[in-house]
Each structure stands twice: as structure tokens, then as C-alpha cells.
């Protein structure tokens, strides 16, 4: 079956989109539309009292997109849990993309605090999608803690480098019993396709869309890249080989 199932919901798109860094809400919406995504993440921040901006929610059609609040900004489990609860209080469904990034520079996830927060949030009934380093053993711990997915990074956020953690991701995919969503670092449709060809269940993209000259068209490009990779995975890719192999029959009339 070609639907993506996370917790009790199914999705026909295997591409998730983060809503950060777009030049405008229009660009963001165009990219979401183009991408065909069904899940978009949002962050929680303080209202600027003196100059309140309109909420991003007024730009996202919640009948079309599942809002997935993230805990970006959280530096430890406690902050992440606090953000998740606030998001739920805001009327979102109890889904959360769990991000715990103590290092404000590289924004790499904290394995210890992420697991701790996941254990708390799962108990509180959240559907938890944790963002993690490409660590197969950590992925197993989170799975055992009851997370709905694991979201290993392909490369550090915003680097556009692609699936640089290929070996580890392959092991995670082989061992996981929950959907594996490759998150962060996918900078081109070929990167998304590669992750899907490896057997990832889905990918999450943001920077590559937000910085594109044409975010709408880039959304489409990623949609096709994800579908291409998924279909190739299902159609059965050939092995890589050391030796060349002709694609023409070599016996011929040229030399008797």
C-alpha cells in the first residue's frame, strides 16, 4: 500500500513542509500548494505586544493541512514539554514535532533530552515525531518510548547537503517499526528522491523551498522527486556494480 500511516492517520503525500524562512506568506502558501504536502509544521513565539503581526494560521487552510506544532527553540526537555502543552492549549491536535537543540549554532538535536521529553509527552497522550541525529540505537529507544515516527537528519539544518548520513539512515530504516522521516539538510529533489529510494517513509523539507527563486515551482519539483524516489523503491532498484555492463548484445557481424 502506498499511503503513509502515522499514528492513526493516513496521508497520501510523503512530503512534509516546515513553514520557516519564507520571504512572504504568499511564497509559503505557493510552496505548500506546489508540494502537495498534507502536514506543515509551525513554531510558537511570543506576540510582539507593541506591534502584533497577524497569525500564520490565517494563511494555512486547516481543512487541507494538518498543523504540526514543533518545539523549536527548546534547549532541554522541560522547555520542549512546555511548548508542546502550549500548542495543544492553542487548540491543535496533540501532535508535536519534538525538537530539542541546545546548541544555537548548529541546531543539532540532543539525544538525552529528546528521549526524556518524548517519554513525558507520550504519557500525556501526544503523538510525538522526534527530530534526531542519525543514530539507530537512539531511534530504537524512542520507538520503545512510543513515538509515532523517528526523524533522523540527513545533514545539519539549512545546509542543503543531502543525505550525508546515508549509512546510519539505512540502518534506521532497516530496523525501524515506525515510519522513518528524513528531516533536515535535503537541499534538492535529488536528495529527497535518494532518501525515498533508500526506503524512507517520508521526508521533511524547508530551507530548499524557502530559499528557492520560485518556491511554488520548487514545491512541485520536490513533490515529483519524492514520488519518483518512492516509486523507484517500490519498483525495485538494481544493484550498483563495479564493472561496466553493455546494454547491447555484443555478438555482431562486424568481426567474424
Amino acid at each position, binding site marked *: 500500500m502506498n499511503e503513509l500511516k502515522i499514528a492513526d492517520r493516513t496521508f497520501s503525500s510523503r512530503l512534509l513542509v*516546515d*513553514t*520557516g*524562512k*519564507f520571504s512572504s*506568506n504568499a511564497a*509559503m502558501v505557493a510552496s505548500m500548494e506546489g508540494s502537495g504536502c498534507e502536514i506543515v*509544521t*509551525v*513554531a*510558537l*513565539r*511570543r*506576540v510582539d*505586544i507593541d506591534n*502584533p*503581526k*497577524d*497569525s*500564520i*494560521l*490565517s494563511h494555512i487552510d486547516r481543512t487541507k493541512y494538518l*498543523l504540526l*506544532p*514543533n518545539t*523549536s527553540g527548546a534547549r532541554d526537555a522541560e522547555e520542549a514539554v512546555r511548548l508542546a*502543552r*502550549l*500548542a495543544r*492549549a*492553542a*487548540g491543535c491536535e496533540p501532535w508535536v*514535532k519534538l525538537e530539542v537543540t541546545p546548541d544555537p549554532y548548529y541546531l543539532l538535536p540532543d539525544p538525552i533530552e529528546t528521549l526524556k521529553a518524548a517519554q513525558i509527552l507520550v504519557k500525556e497522550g501526544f503523538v510525538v515525531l522526534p527530530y534526531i541525529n542519525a543514530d539507530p540505537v537512539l531511534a530504537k529507544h524512542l520507538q520503545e518510548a512510543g513515538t509515532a515516527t523517528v526523524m533522523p537528519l540527513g545533514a545539519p539544518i539549512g545546509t542543503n547537503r543531502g543525505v550525508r548520513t546515508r549509512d546510519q539512515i539505512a540502518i534506521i530504516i532497516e530496523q525501524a517499526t515506525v515510519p522513518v522521516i528524513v528531516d533536515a539538510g535535503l537541499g534538492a529533489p535529488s536528495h529527497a528522491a535518494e532518501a525515498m529510494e533508500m526506503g524512507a517513509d517520508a521526508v*521533511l523539507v*524547508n530551507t530548499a523551498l524557502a530559499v528557492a527563486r520560485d518556491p511554488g515551482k520548487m514545491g512541485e519539483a520536490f513533490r515529483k522527486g519524492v514520488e519518483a524516489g518512492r516509486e523507484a523503491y517500490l519498483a525495485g532498484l538494481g544493484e550498483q556494480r563495479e564493472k561496466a555492463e553493455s546494454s547491447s548484445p555484443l555478438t555482431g557481424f562486424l568481426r567474424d
Partner: protein
Amino acid sequence: MLKERQAMRITINGQPRETTRSTVAAILQEINLSPERVVVELNRSILPRDLFAETSLSEGDALEIVQFVGGG
């Protein structure tokens, strides 16, 4: 009437503020925030939206008013 006269000092999103409004709902109105689009913490505990109107503020209370923004 009387109430109007009694001003109190509270903190909103880290900024000290003087106000004469007595409820969370009134404060939101004062700063033109529609309740539907924000989440409020009163003294570090989440305040359910349907309690905004009946929750009155006291001197020294700390409010956190947050909303969703783009971000991954």
C-alpha cells in the same frame, strides 16, 4: 468605575506594564489581540481560552502571550 481608577503593575511577555483592565480578556482587547489566535500562560501555567473572561488579574501577575509563527 471605581475599578477604572485602580491601576496595577503586571508583566506581559517580560515587559512591565501598568493597566486598569481587570481580566485577561480585557487585557487582550486592550492590546488588540483576538483570543482565538493566542495562547496565554498566567504565572507559568496555561490558561484555557474559555477562562480568559472570568480570570481577573492581580498586582504582579506575569502573562505570557504567544502565537504560532512560521518555523521548523
